[in-house]
């Protein structure tokens, strides 16, 4: 356990050294937030209420989603594990007395923890300064939202881990990550809120794990009753179930992949 705590701390420290990149990322998130928010404001100006969302909800959705971009990493970057599998350095990792899954999980959670502090908070604050946002009034809802954020980060990691280990079979995962990092934002409600999709499509997307990364945390933050189970507890249970399923699958795939690795001497 101590080793994973150390890896977590190292992940956190490592990303905290890329200061210029962090500032640039916040800037990009804010710019995209402003653009998306303007489009949705124009839309809600024409139609004041769509499937339970009003203009304030929509703008809040945009900025919560942009704030989630850092920790959850729906649009990448892919885990470095993918590159290690391609170059064969994974052989060294497999010799370590630590599970690769737990190792990369701790590392990525360290990155996510830093991203929450250095990317999510400034991005959301910038949005709140420009637009009136719907903030939770009860402390309990902030707590639920924090829980939803943590579970969303777990799911985000599980996805990127699965993409990376597909490299054991595909060797080059760039195509996989390019494709999945595009499907992700659409299915998650990052590109536009899932409530805007036609009801049958939205219904399907809501049941998929991607929704647990953006749409569900946003609705927990907004206190909507459209989340699975009708309340924050149900929403977090939905997220936890997907997190457990995906991490379980990741563990299974890791075990199978480790048996496939052939180390060429030299």
């Amino acid at each position: 356990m101590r080793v994973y705590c150390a890896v977590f701390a190292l992940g956190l420290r490592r990303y905290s050294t890329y200061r210029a990149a962090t500032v640039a990322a916040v800037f990009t998130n804010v710019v995209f937030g402003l653009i998306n928010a303007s489009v949705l404001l124009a839309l809600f100006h024409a139609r004041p209420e769509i499937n339970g969302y009003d203009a304030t909800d929509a703008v809040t959705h945009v900025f919560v989603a942009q704030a989630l971009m850092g920790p959850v990493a729906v649009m990448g970057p892919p885990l470095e594990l993918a590159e290690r599998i391609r170059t064969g350095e994974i052989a060294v990792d497999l010799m370590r007395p630590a599970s690769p899954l737990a190792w990369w999980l701790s590392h990525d959670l360290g990155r996510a923890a830093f991203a929450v502090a250095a990317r999510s908070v400034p991005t959301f604050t910038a949005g709140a300064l420009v637009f009136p946002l719907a903030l939770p009034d009860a402390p309990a809802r902030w707590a639920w939202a924090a829980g939803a954020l943590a579970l969303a980060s777990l799911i985000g990691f599980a996805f990127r881990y699965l993409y990376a280990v597909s490299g054991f079979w595909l060797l080059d995962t760039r195509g996989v990550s390019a494709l999945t990092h595009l499907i992700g934002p659409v299915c998650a409600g990052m590109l536009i809120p899932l409530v805007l999709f036609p009801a049958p499509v939205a219904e399907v997307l809501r049941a998929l794990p991607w929704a647990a990364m953006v749409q569900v945390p946003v609705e927990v933050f907004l206190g909507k009753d459209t989340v699975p189970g009708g309340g924050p507890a149900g929403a977090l249970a939905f997220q936890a179930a997907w997190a457990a399923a995906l991490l379980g699958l990741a563990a299974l795939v890791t075990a199978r992949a480790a048996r496939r690795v052939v180390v060429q001497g030299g």
Partner: protein
Amino acid sequence: MYLLLAWTWCRAVAQYPGSLALLALAQAFSTAAELTAVLVVFGHAGELAGFTAREALLVYGLAALAFGTADLLMGSVERIGDHIRTGSLDTMLVRPVPALVQLAADHFSPHRLGKVVPAAAMVGYALATLDVPWTLGRVLYTPVLLAGGVAICCAIWTIGACLQFFVTDAREAANSVTYGGQALTEYPLAVYGRGIVRAATFTVPLAFVSWQPALYLLDRPDPTGLPEWLRFAPPAVAAVLCAAAALAWRAGLRHYRSTGS
């Protein structure tokens, strides 16, 4: 020379056909996803800022076509930061080919056609189904508008990349202008209100990529009240921006001191 280098890279990526196909598919999918977003928004609103969904499709297609083509031709220049850091820019500078050409052709990837082709199809579809008052002038001027849009995007891309000569980590910030610019121009600009339209016309001239050409093709008055002659400005704007990009490139190269490794 550019063609030769580009062809070399095409042959290189063809060695991984699976990845190439997936990457092209990803590009096509991203276009489809953005298009879905545009259509969903317009599906709810019916009309935004006086534009119907089909007219918005034209605006989106023009924007995607210009940015996609610019990305295909010049997208690689944004990796200049890596070339500076690893010192491979030095190698490019001693070769008897202009460094900008080498940089632009570096990692030339045909998968970006995955964006250009659907975008071109969209523009074609929109122009065919919309009631465009075709005259000889329009027929002749439309390719000029398209080329102007591509040139503007290429210039913005190059200027953004040249910033990395001065600030090595500027890539993401430049991305918010290049990719952010694309996101901005996907919708009829009037959606954003007067302030943004003015800014996108007179500071970063993104309005000339899709907004003004669309107004021209649809033969509409500018809903934000800017004069009509602006829609004949794209070629001039493109020329000025390309000159600015050339200057930025020269200034950047002059400022460049090798990392020494």
